[in-house]
């Protein structure tokens, strides 16, 4: 890098993939735009969030009317500290990646938690912090933040 003969320049490669969401993920993202998290009840009566298009056990298509809202609050089932945020990540300060099981759901969703590392515990209660403007994308959930009532039983 110290050689003055050698040039140096920023260079990026980008491709904007256009993806069809399908009926279930489309409904999930439409729900996020309305500030509501949707799951789907599968053949084993488990509520899966985000909702898959097909049942994991029977492989049958899950009906649209099996969609149902789950809570904006939930419990942390696992987490990992991210000490250095990178470009494009949900937060630009250190944060935790976490699996959050929302109230009413039987599966966990991966997202970011904005909290000091010392406060993070498996079992802690968190709630959705919505983006200032929702557009129908997973980033409509800006992140999760701790609930005041503390640790779930």
């Amino acid at each position: 890098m110290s050689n003055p003969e050698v040039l140096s320049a920023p260079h990026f490669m980008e491709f904007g993939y256009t993806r069809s969401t399908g009926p279930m993920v489309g409904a999930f993202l439409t729900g996020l735009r309305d500030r509501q998290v949707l799951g789907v009840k599968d053949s084993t009566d488990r509520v899966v969030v985000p909702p898959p298009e097909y049942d994991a056990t029977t492989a049958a298509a899950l009906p649209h009317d099996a969609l149902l809202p789950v809570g904006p609050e939930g419990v942390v089932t696992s987490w990992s500290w991210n000490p250095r945020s990178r470009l494009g990540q949900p937060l630009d300060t250190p944060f935790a990646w976490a699996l959050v099981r929302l109230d009413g759901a039987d599966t966990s969703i991966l997202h970011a938690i904005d909290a000091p590392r010392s406060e993070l515990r498996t079992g802690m209660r968190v709630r959705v912090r919505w983006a200032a403007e929702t557009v129908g994308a997973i980033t409509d959930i800006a992140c999760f933040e701790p609930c005041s009532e503390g640790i779930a039983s």
Partner: protein
Amino acid sequence: MSEPVTGIITPIRLDYTYTPGTSPSSFLRGMKDGKILGRRCPSCAKVYVPPRGGCPMCGVEFAEEVQVADTGTLVTFAVVNVNFANRVIDLPYVSGEVLFDGADTTSMVLVQGIAADAVRMGMRVKAHWLPPEEWDFTFANIDYVEPTGEPDADYVSYKEHV
């Protein structure tokens, strides 16, 4: 905003700091001055454009820097009928490999100024440069090549490059 979501755009992006090395750096400085620079192998005498540090065939370091012409021979080409997402050129267009006069390697360049179905191997072409005030450290200073109108080159003169 009441229509249901049916699609999303998910950009995949990689950010680099690109350092081209000494030989490509001198090539890019040449481009900034409107010159096509290569380097000659002291062993096989082939001129590489753009140059690397050494000759990949002989395994020896390049020494001599040489300027090649901005005229050349179209040695092979492809007719493009589908536009890339962010590159909009009137279809169909031709992407060609040009052997600039004095060089022993070819460069991929856009071919313009002729109908796609009239393009042929051996066609003589000349670089069309962007206006000098737009020149930067990039091969993109050559916007495209266009026919010179000279007679086509003999196949023998470029057959090693097809």
